[in-house]
């Protein structure tokens, strides 16, 4: 097996958190190697405007034949192999990860999101806890993330937002018609829509250009460079240090240990499918809420028979995918022309605050979307009366310029049996057991999703919609929001990492992705992932300078 030269830090995963760590640690003088299982696309690779290739083929995601995952609702039901459709509703596997194709909604979690048990708990069937950190601990790093990654928005425009000291670096995105339609309905009902904070530049910033409103935004990479993916905003800075090596197409298979039980590096399959070993003084896991847990479980040893850093037995458990929808389809009498502009420009947080009198705790929000220009997606939606023929074609004509889809995102409560483990019956093309997901939404999540769907219906009725389709809550099998599977806490018996996201069991192993989230909040997680990674790296650099980390 090829043995590389030792680096200070080996980071597994080059997505949201991995590239934050790559930038921060190289700028602090450390040598870093990032192992990324997917390819390294460049800005110009996203230029083709091709729904078929980017959305409906395996441009961003491995095929289910080569790298499948399985799902079951509970431990008593046999697992099924996830379909291509489900598999592709997940974070891209490429440099930049999910930040390449996300819609860019960039939230600070609210103060109460860090103390769910104190505010609302305990709740039967859940493992809700307070985070070992507070909003105040995170606030400086939210600001740092907003200004380093490049977030657009209008500070203090939401009456529900947590306190901030500084505005966003660039102003909010141009309002699209789905956003204006939300405002029309919401204002009639006395609600408080406000501009979506987005990882999309609206003017020149940090050497990148502003958005040109081209559409094809959510689920697509940005050929303009306006979307603030970590590929665009952070990677160039990390590379400029000369201390980063990024290795695409390299799939980590095991974190290796030295004889003292500290991490000694990572073994991986290179682009030729051959095994190599990267020795490192520190190992940082940033592979996302499913694959980080899988790699820890794959890294079992005599010292860690349950999987690495898993003396608590909690690696893989308490997985959270957010509440199960719902996504409405709404049509309006006048054209929305949703193929133009960014996807989300106005949102509503009036239903975010927890209120147990509604029959559930916690909350969420609504965000109508411009569809971006995906006619195949629309053609295959079950909203046309008939699936084919003249009636279907006429429905496509009537709908195309006039529809929006409106997402509800809500908190999902942690449930210990919702988990990632290793499938005993199925291996991937490398011969490794695949991730098996066991997941059923808690009843509270289902009630919340239903509630947000009904409130959305009222808003679009008030806005004058001609047709409002509110589906039932979904069965969540996989999601691009993957949180909780290696939770942080002060007690090594009930958490995987400490408040600095350092393994309780292995002192030179850190986890910086959303696995460490204690609860999910009802908000898109990426900015919190990035802010937390900045916070953890700040600690790592301080400790390293004291000689406490790297000897």
């Amino acid at each position, binding site marked *: 097996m090829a043995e590389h030269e030792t680096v200070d830090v080996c980071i597994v995963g080059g997505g949201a958190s991995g590239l934050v760590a790559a930038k921060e640690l190289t700028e602090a003088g450390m040598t870093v190697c990032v192992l990324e299982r997917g390819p390294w696309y*460049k800005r*110009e690779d996203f230029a083709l405007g091709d729904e078929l290739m980017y959305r409906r*083929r395996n441009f961003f995601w491995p095929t289910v034949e*080569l790298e499948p995952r399985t799902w079951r609702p509970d431990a008593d039901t046999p697992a099924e192999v996830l379909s291509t459709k489900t598999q592709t509703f997940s974070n891209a596997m490429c440099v930049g990860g999910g930040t390449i194709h996300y819609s860019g909604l960039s939230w600070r979690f609210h103060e109460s999101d860090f103390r769910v048990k104190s505010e609302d708990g305990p709740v039967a069937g859940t493992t809700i806890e307070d985070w070992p950190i507070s909003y105040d601990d995170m606030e400086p790093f939210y600001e740092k993330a907003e200004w380093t990654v490049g977030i657009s928005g*209008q500070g203090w425009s939401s009456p529900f937002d947590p306190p901030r000291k500084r505005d966003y670096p660039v102003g909010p995105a141009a309002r699209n018609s789905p956003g204006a339609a939300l405002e029309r309905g919401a204002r009639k009902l006395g609600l408080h829509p406000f501009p979506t904070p987005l990882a999309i530049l609206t003017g020149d910033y940090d050497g990148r250009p502003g958005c040109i409103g081209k559409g094809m935004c959510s689920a697509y990479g940005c050929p303009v460079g306006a979307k603030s993916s970590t590929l665009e905003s952070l990677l160039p800075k990390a590379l400029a240090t000369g201390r980063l090596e990024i290795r695409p197409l390299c799939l980590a298979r095991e974190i290796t240990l030295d004889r003292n039980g500290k991490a000694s590096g990572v073994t991986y399959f290179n682009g030729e*499918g051959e095994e190599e070993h990267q020795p490192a003084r520190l190992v940082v896991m940033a592979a996302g809420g499913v694959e980080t847990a899988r790699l820890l479980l794959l890294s079992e040893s005599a010292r860690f028979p349950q999987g690495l850093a898993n003396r608590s037995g909690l690696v893989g458990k308490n997985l959270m995918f957010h509440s199960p929808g719902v996504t409405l389809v709404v049509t309006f009498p006048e054209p929305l*022309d949703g193929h133009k502009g960014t996807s989300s420009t106005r949102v509503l947080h009036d239903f975010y605050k927890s209120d147990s009198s509604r029959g559930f705790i916690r909350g969420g929000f609504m965000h109508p979307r411009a569809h971006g220009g995906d006619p195949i997606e629309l053609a295959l939606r079950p909203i046309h009366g008939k699936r084919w023929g003249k009636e279907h*074609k006429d429905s*496509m004509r009537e709908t195309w310029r006039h529809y929006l889809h409106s997402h509800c995102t809500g908190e999902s409560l942690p449930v210990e049996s919702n988990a990632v483990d290793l499938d005993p019956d199925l291996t991937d093309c490398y011969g490794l057991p695949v991730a098996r997901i066991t997941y059923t939404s808690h009843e509270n999540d289902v009630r919340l999703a239903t509630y947000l769907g009904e409130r959305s219906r009222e808003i679009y009725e008030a806005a004058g919609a001609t047709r409002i389709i509110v589906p039932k809550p979904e069965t969540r099998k996989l999601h691009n929001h993957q949180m909780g599977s290696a939770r942080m806490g002060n007690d090594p018996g009930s958490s995987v990492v400490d408040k600095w996201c350092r393994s309780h069991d292995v002192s030179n192993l850190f986890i910086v992705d959303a696995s460490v989230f204690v609860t999910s909040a009802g908000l898109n997680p990426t900015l919190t992932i990035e802010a937390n990674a900045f916070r953890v790296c700040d600690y790592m650099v301080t400790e390293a300078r004291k000689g406490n980390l790297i000897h």
Partner: protein
Amino acid sequence: MSDTDSGSVLSDHERATIEAAAARIVPSDEGAGASEAGVIDYIEGLLAADDVDTDISPREKKEYANFILGGMGGRTEEQQATLFKLHGTGSRHLQAYRDGVVELDRVAAELASGKDFRGLDDAGRDQVLTVLDERKDAFFTLLLTHTMEGFYGHPRHGGNKDRVGWRVLDYPGPSFPHGNEKPYGWYDANEPDEFVQEKKDGSS
């Protein structure tokens, strides 16, 4: 392999039957339908890709992925087409289509005393497709999905010729590199906006 001289993976009868079925899924009316869009060419392209050996090893898979590594911007049309096909591999549809044509003819013969699918008029063809649709036939769903892809998808894959599928929707197609000017639609033009976009100097 093909039993024709055209190099197609389908026989003339198979090709004509699939084309006729697609033409009922997206019929021609005052606007173009699947026939004018060349949906059959799109489908045949997919099936030809299926005909290559997709039972690839991790090493081969990595080689395919490496193909992307240098960026697609500088690739030729032919290279991009190959890339697309490789990314589409992993499911073999050719046999499903062959069996599907046999099934279309079998149901047609049942409903119309011995005629094959192509021998029916539009109403008869719709009747056959409805039978398959109502019993949730897997081939029908495949054909329907590929027909929508070939009609509404990007012309670079062989369907949606001259953007006729997008014209049916009054959709100008992907706007990059030009983008779009405000207003985008009726509602952002007409609904008062209390949050006026301001561009700040990001240097502070």
